[in-house]
């Protein structure tokens, strides 16, 4: 069901997770389909994390980090940015579709951007419908 879709979101501790906090403190509304996982820096996002999320049944994955120049470890987000470009191609080739994956930069003060991006992603995935990868992989034989 489109209402049950699950999106795994990775947020870096210093900016994007702060953005989620800002959105929360300001009581901005966004759909509950998102599960946020905090990592210290977006540069810590290993492509294995993203693929594992899809394998375990995520319908979409959203990776967020600091704006360019703001990474607290200097350049983690630049590295993540390059990795994501390869990952879009990989998930497309694996039939998951590049639309189910998204990355963007959200600062700690951008509560508004946080809630808007989440809404955008949830709508996008609802339109695509659930990813049945997990069901497919569980088929025996």
């Amino acid at each position, binding site marked *: 069901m489109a209402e049950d879709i699950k999106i795994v979101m990775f947020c870096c501790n210093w900016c994007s997770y702060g953005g989620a906090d800002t959105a929360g403190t300001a009581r901005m509304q966004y759909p509950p389909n998102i599960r946020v996982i905090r990592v210290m820096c977006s540069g810590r996002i290993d*492509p*294995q994390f993203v693929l594992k999320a899809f394998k375990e049944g995520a319908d979409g994955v959203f990776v967020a980090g600091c704006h360019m120049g703001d990474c607290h470890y200097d350049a983690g987000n630049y590295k993540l940015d390059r990795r*994501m470009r390869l990952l879009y191609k990989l998930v497309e*080739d694996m*039939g998951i579709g590049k639309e189910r994956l998204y990355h963007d930069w959200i600062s700690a003060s951008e509560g508004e951007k946080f809630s808007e991006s989440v809404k955008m992603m949830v709508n996008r995935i609802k339109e695509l419908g659930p990813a*049945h990868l997990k069901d497919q*992989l569980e088929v025996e*034989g």
Partner: protein
Amino acid sequence: MADKAKIGTMWLGGCSGCHLSIADFHESLLDVLELAEFEFSPVLMDTKYDEVPELDVLIVEGGIRNDENRELAEMLNEKAKFIICYGTCACYGGIPGLGNLFTVDELEEEAYINSLSTVNPDKIIPNEEVPHLESRVRPLEDVMDIDLMVPGCPPRSDVVAQAVVALLKGETIELPTTNLCEVCPREKPPEGLAMDFIKRQFEVGAPEKDLCLISQGLVCMGPATVSLCGAECPSIAIQCRGCYGPTAKVLDQGAKMVSAIASDYGIDEDKTVDPEEVANQLDDIVGTFYTYTLPAALVPAKMQKGGK
């Protein structure tokens, strides 16, 4: 001397190359035969599937591609005390695993109807008296209880012969856990394994003699590949394609390579290099990074429409 151990060998979804590497034991075969006797081997001798003896050691090549593979694997699982998962097809699905990018219908149509060398005017796909393909290739451990994994496409005969002799003598076997770069003789640049461009080998010609291939623009799977082969390919100026599979610390060999290549791409201009540049130069991500291990990857098969 005590009774000789009973060894069996079996092939499932493989190419028989792994059996050639057993046949290639050379003089070590004599050491093996001193301790053991081959009792069952459909590839090398006349054997019957309904008369399989109890075995002390079974060496299995190939993964699970069809229902016959599964049936035989289940039967042999009951017959053997110690099972060696032999070769990359058995351990990780291997090259046949790239079939997981297609549906069974697509594979059958390609094999029986579309392929240029096939003459089949009535477009008949045989489905009686032949094993049926399963929905995807799976590594052997999905069906059998594995005691030892020996990857390689095929595994190096000398290494395996040593391991088998040690096993038969009751010694413990330790396979290396480091990655290929650790044993590769090529010089690693101090700034790390970074690329500024990606090229195919024919575009580069002969690579520089002693320098790491990655820093010369060639995709080498060394960083994500286990060092069991002793870096055979980079030693002779060919990039590693990852045929021995990942190290034990890596869940997904391809994803690890995506990370290794992309993270350090253009590192000298870390903040100004176009982030698309690396992706633009790699067309076949799955074919490049998952040549040997797709069935064991986190996402082991292409998601079909709706996934049903």
